[in-house]
Each structure stands twice: as structure tokens, then as C-alpha cells.
């Protein structure tokens, strides 16, 4: 059995894993939703088919991440979500819209299909913007000032751009022909916006918090830390060149942009997590102050240690089953 302090570390790590999994996995399917064209039914169908088998499981990572916050850090959960009540409602409405539109569009009469596509697209955009807004407010420590909300607005656009970036990278990998070329073009423009977004969030983080600034630039940790943003930036550059080449040779290395997006998401996530650790509500609560009773967490932990690897294994199995270009679905 672990003591409370260790449990806090373990559960915040598990929560981090769930959040990162969510950002990457639901990130790409939200991104595909944002890109859904309303005037080109064939492309829309292919795009939806590319995320069809996965979206539900992807979204479950959100439930796990929020669930872990609720279970392991109940006071933090209550502070965070009372502060984010309205954007959180918008996010949920967005997720409801896209989750149901996905199923209704395939079953509705043809005349209504376009409408459900509109619902799907706007739901995806609404959920992404709301998540970005919530992230922005979190970074600003939930302060209710004009600057905080302005920054949250920027963050909303940044996160939506990042999701669109990973979503288009997913399409580059999963599609062929015209649609793939379009996806490459989208990927090129969103990779730039995402880069600017991450740069801005990082700078603001450093500017508003002397502690965070100190953390990153204190010798000798700086030697290990400074390479993180440099490596991250170089992935952006690499991704850009790969995309340029893919426009001409779409068959070689089509999975690379998605791979780079994955790495960029992971590094950015670690950057952010490192900046805030060990605080769970910025400026108010540390993970040790907010952690729940060891009786509860130890009971939870044994399950998590067995189940999480199993989940990862069958998730991998599911991705293997649906491996390859989405167009192949046609030949079966």
C-alpha cells in the first residue's frame, strides 16, 4: 500500500496520461469534424468513415481524465469546474451535438444528411473552442479579468488550430487522391497557426508567473529543459518540409505528419505539466493538498494498474484492425 504523497504523484501521472491520450485521440477526430466540408458529400463520407470506429473510445479518455481528477483530487475538481461552469457546458453541448450527428447523419433521410453534417461540424468546433478557452482560463489561474478572458480567447483559437492540425495530419495518413491533397494544404496552414499558438501560450506562461520562469531557466535544470522547446520547434519545421514533399509524392511517409503532431502534442503537454507541477489549481492548491483518502486511492490503483495496460492493448488491437487507408473499406 502506498502513502498519500506517493498516491498523489501516481494519480496525477495517470491523469496526465489520460489527458494526453485524450488531446491526441479526440484531438484528431475533433479536427476532422472541424474540417468536414459541407459541399462535398463524398469527401465528408470518407472523412467520417476514417474516424467512425474510434471516436467513441477516444472520447472515453476525457471521461477517465475528468474521472481521475474527481476521484483523486475532489476539491480541485470542484474548484476547477465551478469556475469553468459555462465553457464546460458549451463543451458538453458540442460533444453531444457531434456524437449524435455522427450516427444520425447515416440514418436520416438524404435531405437531412447535410443538416446533420452542419451539426457535426459546429459541434466539433464548439467543443474545441470551449476546451481551448478552459485551458486558457486554467493557465491564467481562473482570474476574472479582461486580459484573462482575452488570453482564453486566443487559447481557444490555438487549441482548435492544434486539433485541426492533428486532424488534417490524420487525414493525410488515412486518405488518398484529392482529399489527401486538401488535407495536406490544411495541415500546412494549421501547422503554422499551431506553432504561433504554442509559442504565445509559452511566452504568456513565462511572463505571468515568475515561479514558472525560474523553473525553466534555473541552472542546472535549464540544461535539460531548454532543449524541449527547441526539439518541439524543430518538429514543426520537419513537419513543414515533409508536408511540402508529400504534396508531390503522397505515397511515401504519409504517416509522418501525424507522427510529428503526436510528438509536438506530447512535448507541449509535458512543458505545460512541468510548469504547473505540483499545483493542480494554479496558485491555490497543490496535488498534496487536494489528494483524496489513501483507502480510496489504493483500491482504485490496483484496478488501474491491471486495467490501463489492458485498455492500451486492445486500443492498439482496434487500430490494427482498421489500419491502412480508409478507402479500403470499399473493397470489402
Amino acid at each position, binding site marked *: 500500500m502506498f502513502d498519500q504523497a506517493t498516491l498523489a504523484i501516481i494519480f496525477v501521472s495517470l491523469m496526465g496520461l489520460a489527458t494526453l491520450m485524450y488531446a491526441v485521440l479526440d484531438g484528431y477526430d475533433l479536427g476532422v469534424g472541424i474540417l468536414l466540408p459541407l459541399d462535398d458529400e463524398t469527401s465528408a463520407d470518407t472523412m467520417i*468513415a476514417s474516424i467512425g470506429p474510434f471516436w467513441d473510445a477516444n472520447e472515453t479518455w476525457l471521461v477517465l481524465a475528468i474521472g481521475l481528477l474527481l476521484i483523486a483530487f475532489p476539491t480541485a475538481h470542484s474548484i476547477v469546474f465551478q469556475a469553468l461552469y459555462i465553457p464546460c*457546458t458549451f463543451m458538453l453541448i458540442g460533444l453531444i451535438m457531434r456524437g449524435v450527428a455522427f450516427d444520425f447523419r447515416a440514418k436520416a433521410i438524404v435531405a437531412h444528411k447535410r443538416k446533420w453534417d452542419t451539426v457535426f461540424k459546429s459541434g466539433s468546433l464548439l467543443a474545441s473552442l470551449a476546451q481551448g478557452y478552459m485551458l486558457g482560463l486554467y493557465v491564467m489561474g481562473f482570474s476574472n479579468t479582461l486580459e484573462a478572458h482575452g488570453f482564453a480567447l486566443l487559447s481557444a483559437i490555438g487549441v482548435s488550430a492544434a486539433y485541426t492540425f492533428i486532424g488534417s495530419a490524420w487525414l493525410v495518413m488515412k486518405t488518398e487522391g484529392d482529399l489527401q491533397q486538401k488535407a495536406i494544404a490544411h495541415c500546412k496552414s494549421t501547422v503554422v497557426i499551431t506553432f504561433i499558438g504554442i509559442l504565445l501560450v509559452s511566452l504568456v506562461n513565462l511572463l505571468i508567473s515568475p515561479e514558472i520562469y525560474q523553473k525553466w531557466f534555473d541552472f542546472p535544470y535549464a540544461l535539460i529543459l531548454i532543449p524541449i522547446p527547441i526539439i518541439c520547434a524543430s518538429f514543426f519545421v520537419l513537419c513543414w518540409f515533409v508536408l511540402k514533399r508529400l504534396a508531390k509524392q503522397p505515397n511515401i511517409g504519409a504517416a509522418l505528419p501525424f507522427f510529428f503532431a503526436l510528438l509536438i502534442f506530447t512535448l507541449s503537454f509535458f512543458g505545460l505539466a512541468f510548469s504547473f507541477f505540483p499545483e493542480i489549481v494554479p496558485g491555490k492548491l497543490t496535488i498534496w493538498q487536494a489528494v483524496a483518502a489513501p483507502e480510496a486511492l489504493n483500491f482504485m490503483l490496483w484496478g488501474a494498474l491491471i486495467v490501463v495496460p489492458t485498455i492500451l492493448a486492445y486500443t492498439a488491437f482496434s487500430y490494427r484492425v482498421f489500419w491502412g487507408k480508409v478507402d479500403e473499406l470499399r473493397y470489402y
Partner: protein
Amino acid sequence: MLDTLMLSRIQFAANISFHILFPTITIAMCWFLVFFKVRFDMTGNPVWMRAYRFWVKIFALSFALGVVSGITMSFQFGTNWPGFMEKVGNIAGPLLGYEVLTAFFLEATFLGIMLFGIKRVPPKVHTLACIVVAIGTTLSAFWILSLNSWMQTPTGFEMRDGIAYPTDWFAVIFNPSFPYRLAHMLLASGLTASFMIIGVSCYRLLKGDDKQAPKLTLKVAVIVAAILSPLQAFVGDLHGLNTLEHQPQKIAAMEGVWQTEKGAPLLLFAIPDEENRTNHFEIGIPNMASFILTHELDGEIKGLDQFKGEHPPVKPVFFGFRIMVGLGLLMIAISWFATYTLKKRGQLPTWLMRILVGLTFSGWLATLAGWYVTEIGRQPYLVSGVLKVSDAATQIAPANVGFSLALYLTTYAILLVAYLHTVFLMARRAVEIEEFDMSEKPIKQLPSKGDNAYV
């Protein structure tokens, strides 16, 4: 003006009422699908596959609605009821956590393979995926009902400084009312799915469908309903006895017993009057309630007078219980009659099919009514004897809750209409188009790709 507490209660009630509709369908329907699929694997008869293919679409739609409303629910614990997690989070948290870990991921991941992977994996693996999804949905019911039952009959914990700490996880999970509630809910799901399959199959037949699939699904579901409905009455009775033991105030409200009495009558109808603490227009069978609950004609039933200020509002519990039992009895009668007619004549008369179409969603009504009985019956407590509802509510501004409530209500109303419309639309479409035949391999023409590969 409604305050935050009242608005939060309305919002939670709306969310849970909307949410519960869909798991109630999917938990049992998934086992129906497993049955259809296994029968196909065993016999190779394409009619089983057509039955599977039609119902898997309705399953997928119901599942999606359950997922999205479930996510909303999971957020509301923290947003609207922070006191709940602060006081009993050490117990509620892990139960919810285990639901996500053991059930949600399982069903969500294998659902992808179940719906879209039929041509990408060997048939046996596909059938296995269906079984895994069915196990996932049932496990999910296991955990959530364990938590709900614990809130009704809490055991296996101790209070330290006003916060609940688990002392015995086995006692927490398998708390006294849990086995009854789980069995009652699973049977409710079985009946809801059966009556939905019966109703929609009859609808297809009435619309002139002369294919084998709707006749087959009708027959299967009628037989299942005829078996499950009396079983449900039996389990319901056991559940009632368990409630009498642990939550006598709920039984008193269900039976409309204001004063403790011996030989209490079974009230078929009455209008409870909360102000004067009495009933009007009573129609009852003498001594029957005592007999059912204590198995003695003059057995004593505790009245609401013993629980002043600590008992639930009587009217909704009283009427909810009668609606549930009434629908249950109707289900027994009609499923037995339909089974008998089917055995004797091989088909159902038109008038009966019309009634059955009308009863398509009778399971929903019975489940909701029963759910209100048990949930309102726990008032004013959120966790019986441990935490009052009013002590768990959020402090956020009423305007915010009002705003989110309006958004949810609008969304849910639209979705419910769209859902009902789409179910019958799919049934009408199935009447006209010849269904997909699995026996011809390989299948060349799938409909458009986005039209979900399982159409």
C-alpha cells in the same frame, strides 16, 4: 424565483431521465444482437444476419445517445454537486472510476469493431466483439447500480470529521439493496428492449413488410418478454421486501400509509394529501399491503408519521409506483397472450399488433416511473442517513445553472424527437429495401462509405 439547489435538481433529474432511456435499451439489446449473431454463425441462415443488421443500427444510435448524455452526467457530479464528492467521494469515486476503467473503454473500443469491423476481422472475432460489448454494457450497469444502491443503503464505511471513509470494499459494492436493484434493472432493460423489438417489428409487418426478419425478431422478443415479465414481478417483490427492511419510509410513501397500521390495505387508487397527511378517494383491497409486505394479513406497516421531516414527498412516489406496477402487469398479460397466439396461429391479429406498436416504448415509461420511485423515495437524503441533498449542492450563481438547464432541455427535446423519428424511419425504410445478404461473398457494393459500413 428558483434557487441554485432547485435548478441543479431539475437539471440532474432531466439529465438522468434522458440518459437512463438509452442504457435501458442498449444493455439488453446487445444480448439480443449476440443471440442473433450466434444463431447466424450456427445456422448460416441469412435471416438471422438481417435481423442483426437491422437492429445493430438502432443499437448504435441508442448507444451514441447514451454515451453523450453519460458524459454530461459525469461532469455534473463535480459541477453541480461538489458536496457529494467532498463527503462521500472516497466511496463514490472508485466505483465510478471502475466503471470507466472496466466497462466504458471495453464497450467503446469493441463497439468500433462490432459496428465497422465485420469485414475486417474473422466472423468469430466479430461475434466475440459483440459479446465483449454486451459484457461491457452489463458491467457498466453493475458499477453504476452498485453506487446507486450504496447511496440508498450505505454499508462498509465509517464517518470521520463528516467525511465517509471505506472500511470494507466488499460491503460497499455488495451493499444490502444492490443484488435486488441490479436484477430489477437488468430485467427492466430486458423488457424495454423486448417491447421495443416487438413494437418496431409489428410496425414493419403492419406497413406491409413480408420479409422473414421482422417475423423472426417479433417471435424471439415476444417469448423473451413472456419469460422476463413474471420474473420481473417476482424480483420486484423481493426488492420491495428489501426496501421495507432498509428504507421503510420509502415503502410507506409508495403504499400511502400515513399512520402506522396493522392489516394495511393495498391501495389501488388514492390521492395523497401532503398537507393534511391523509389520502382522498381511496380504493383498496383490505389487508393486502400487509400481506404482500409481511406475508401476514394483519402485519404491521410503519407509517409516514414515524418519519416526520425525514420522508420523501408522497405523491410522486405513490403514483410512480402504481404506473410502474400497472405497466408491469400489462406487460405480463400482453406478452403471454401474444406468445399463446403466436404458438397457436403462427401470427398475430392486426389489432394486437397495433396495440404492440403503441407499447413500443412502454419499457421506458415503466423504467422511468420505477426510477422516480426509488430516487425520489430516498429524499431528502442523497445518501440515506449520511448526506442530505441540500448539503451537496453547488454555490454557483442560479443564472448559470438556469442557462445550462435551458440548453440541456432544448438539446434533449430535439434529440428525443429525432431519435423516435429516426427509429420509425429506419423501420419504414427496411420495409421497402431488400436487406443485405451475408451469404454472398465477397460483398461488392457497400452503400456510400459514410453510410457506416454496417448498413
